[in-house]
Each structure stands twice: as structure tokens, then as C-alpha cells.
């Protein structure tokens, strides 16, 4: 065997370690809009990935359909029972919506935090080592996707857009361990709204953590948690999940709640990217700046 640590090799090893540290430092800093070579690579590979993933999703969907067929009868009965209620609720919603529109008109309110438009996207990849929880979708800057937009499935919120390139973008799921992965949320309590932040994911219970809830807030198990829209980027009212349990935090100043997410993070085929209707904070600030 040749001598491993000859002088030349040692120097190469040291230089490469220094390069490693520099590269990691560069990419962990808050630059996070992609450079154009990265965008180019992601887009061209993304195109190949989407051609691979479409048939895969189709086959997986076939299996799931077979699985669903087994309890079709039971499900149908329950749904029929729900349908009777639905007609009544639909009428009620219509009346309320009309009333709301009239009142808004009377008060000259044009936009609310609820306004949003949806953009469907196909999931094209997921990082194979699950050190980060990122998925790629096949809609990018050219389709109007921007960084930090909310991403939902039909069942609820799953994450936010982490970075965009021209034709693809990367979504950071709520289960990612990044410290900056934080979403302003609120609990729909009896007659008030209780605010907090979705921060972190508990792997043992599979629950999201809702932190920084006021200590005297009254929260009960089973109440729904939705986005608050106060973060300035997400619209209000995207479903996140249900409260599983509540406890005081380690200092006793605030409360933490465990939230059972309503969306599944495991079988993501199609997602919806949410564009907020109300102006975001940055846009307002920019306009103010121009006005001065």
C-alpha cells in the first residue's frame, strides 16, 4: 500500500477542508437567493425529475385507490350523513358572505387577510437523505412563485417556499428542523383568538409545536389552529391542525401546545402554492419609500 499521508496529500486534504468550511459558511449565510448556475442546474434536472415523477405518482395513486376501495361503503354512509348538514351550512355561508360583502362595502374595506389565490404544482423530488425536509415543485419564478409563499395541500398547510429558480422551486416543510422555520399561527378558541408561533416538530409524537402562547390564554384540546396572517406573508385562515395537548414552557412564562397537523407530510403528490391577496409588509414599505 502506498504511503497515505505524503506531504502533498496532506496539503490537499487541509486545503479541501478549508474549502469545505468556506463553502458551508457561504451557503448557510443569509444570502438565499440562488445564483444562476444553481438555478440552471435545478431547472434542467427538475425537468428530468418531473418526467420521472409523474408516472411514479400515477402508480402510487393506483395503489392508494385500491386501498381506499376497501372501506368505500362505510365512508359513503358517513358522507351522506354529512351531506344533510351541508345544505344548511351552505345557505348559511352564502347569507353570511353576502352580509360581509355589504358591510365591507359600507366601510370601504377593499382587501382582507383572507384573500388569496392558489397555484397547483407537482412535487418533483424530495431530498433522499432526510436531514432536511425539502421538496421540489415544478413551478418557479416564471409562474409567479416567490420566496416565503405558503404551500398547502387540500388538507392543510405543509410548508413555505424556501427558494425559487426560474422553473422550479424548493419548499421547506413544517417538519424541518431549521431554526428560522417559524410561522405565525392562532388557535381558534371559544370566543377569542389566541396567537402563537409554529416552531419545530416533535418526532416522537409527530406533532408540531405551537410556542409563545400567552400564559393565561384558555386553550382546549381539539380546537383548530390556523395561520394568523400577521407574519405579513401568509394569508389568514389556512388550516394547520388541531390542539393535542397544552403545557407550560420551561420557564413558566408562556404556554406550549402540541398540534396534530391535519396534512400528511409523507405522501405529497400535488401541492397548492398560496399567493396572498393583501399587500405584504415589504410592498407597503417599498411604496412608502417611494412616496417620500
Amino acid at each position, binding site marked *: 500500500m502506498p504511503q497515505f499521508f505524503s506531504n502533498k496529500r496532506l496539503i490537499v486534504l487541509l486545503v*479541501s477542508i478549508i474549502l469545505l468550511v468556506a463553502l458551508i459558511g457561504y451557503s448557510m449565510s443569509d444570502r438565499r437567493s440562488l445564483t444562476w448556475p444553481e438555478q440552471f442546474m*435545478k431547472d434542467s434536472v427538475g425537468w428530468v425529475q418531473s418526467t*420521472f415523477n409523474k408516472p*411514479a405518482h400515477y402508480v*402510487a395513486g393506483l395503489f392508494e385507490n385500491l386501498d381506499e376501495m376497501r372501506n368505500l361503503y362505510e365512508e359513503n354512509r358517513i358522507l351522506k350523513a354529512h351531506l344533510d348538514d351541508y345544505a344548511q351550512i351552505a345557505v348559511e355561508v352564502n347569507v353570511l358572505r353576502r352580509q360581509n360583502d355589504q358591510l365591507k362595502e359600507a366601510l370601504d374595506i377593499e382587501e382582507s387577510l383572507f384573500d388569496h389565490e392558489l397555484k397547483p404544482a407537482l412535487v418533483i423530488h424530495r431530498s*433522499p*437523505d432526510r436531514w432536511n425536509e425539502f421538496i421540489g415543485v415544478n413551478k418557479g419564478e416564471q409562474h409567479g412563485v416567490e420566496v416565503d409563499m405558503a404551500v398547502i395541500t387540500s388538507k392543510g398547510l405543509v410548508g413555505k417556499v424556501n427558494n425559487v429558480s426560474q422553473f422550479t422551486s424548493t419548499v421547506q416543510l413544517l417538519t424541518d428542523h*431549521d431554526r428560522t422555520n417559524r410561522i405565525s399561527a392562532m388557535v381558534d378558541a371559544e370566543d377569542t383568538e389566541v396567537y402563537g408561533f409554529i416552531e419545530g416538530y416533535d418526532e416522537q409524537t409527530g406533532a408540531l409545536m405551537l410556542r409563545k402562547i400567552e400564559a393565561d390564554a384558555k386553550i382546549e384540546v381539539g380546537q383548530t389552529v390556523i395561520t394568523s396572517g400577521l407574519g405579513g406573508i401568509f394569508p389568514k385562515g389556512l388550516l394547520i391542525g388541531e390542539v393535542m395537548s397544552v403545557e407550560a414552557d420551561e420557564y413558566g412564562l408562556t404556554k406550549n401546545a402540541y398540534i396534530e397537523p391535519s396534512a400528511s407530510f409523507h405522501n405529497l403528490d400535488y401541492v397548492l402554492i398560496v399567493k396572498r391577496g393583501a399587500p405584504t409588509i415589504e410592498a407597503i414599505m417599498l411604496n412608502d419609500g417611494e412616496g417620500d
Partner: protein
Amino acid sequence: MIRCLLPFFIFLLFIIEGTVFQVFSPDRFGSEAIIIPRFAFIFVIVITIFLGRTTGGIYAIVLGLFQDVIYTHVLGIYIFSMFFTAYLLGFTYKIFQKNLYLLIITAVFGTLVLDYLVYGIHFMVGITNLAHEQFLYERLLPSLVVNSVFMIIIAFPLRKFLLFLQKNDDVEEKINKRKKDFRWQR
């Protein structure tokens, strides 16, 4: 021309790792275990053993770059780990080419080293705070089993193909040498 098949296969496996494999991954069916496929990297290790450290190192760097840009978003982690692992295993040539079992063991050992390196760097940088025991039982051992199965399936045909390439190289070298000698003689 036939040499272009190698990068093509590696790229194909790299794409499959992130797309088709993830659609049918075990956690979709409610399993705790996470399988990290290292199919493309197994290819790179075998290439390093057969075609030399320089060629293998280049393959490893390019594969690492792709992995970093497309999946990890932290540049450098995979470029370094893959190059380091492949280069290290490149020292074990000659005996390992002849014996199929040794080849399989080396490649699987390579995925083990790579996973530990990547885990270590992620832990050091602070992206993950997964305990070692959890890492061992939930990620390393399941993925080790799957990667070994893949390697056992692929080992024989891949070795055949690489030996064929090596032979091609030798023949070409001989022809070139003859030509040179011939010129010298004139």
C-alpha cells in the same frame, strides 16, 4: 462512446433516488425507518476501484455537487464527503477487483463511511440534533440493508462492464504505444 454509459447510469440512479424512490419510500406507509439510497454513490465507488482514484474522484465531486445543489442546499457537504470516501477507497485496488465479495463489502462499507461523514457534518453545523442511537437504528441500518441488496444485484454486471472498459483501455494504450514505437523506428 461506450464510456458515456457510465455517467448516464449514474445520473439516472441519482434522479431515481430523489423521485421514484421517494414516492415509494417506507415512511409513506407509516414506518419509522428512513432509507437513504446511495445507489449512484455505489457506482462511483466501484468506478474508483476499477478506473483509478483520479477518474473516481472527478465522478465523486460532480455527483456531490449535484446532490448539494439539488437536494441539500448547503454546498460542500456532499462534494467533500463523497470525494473523501471515494478517494480513500481508491487505495484498495487490484485484489478487490478480482474478488466479487470483497468488492461488495467495500462498496457497502463506503456508503457507511459516507453516511457517518454526512451525519457528522450536519451535526457539527447544527442542521440536525438527532441522537446517535436514533441515527443508527432508524437510518443507518435500514439503508445499509437496502444498499447491500442493490450492490449484490448490480455487482456482477457492473464488474463485467468495467473490466471490459479496462481491457479496452489497455488495448488502446498498446495500439498507441505501437504507433509511437513505429514512428521512433522510422
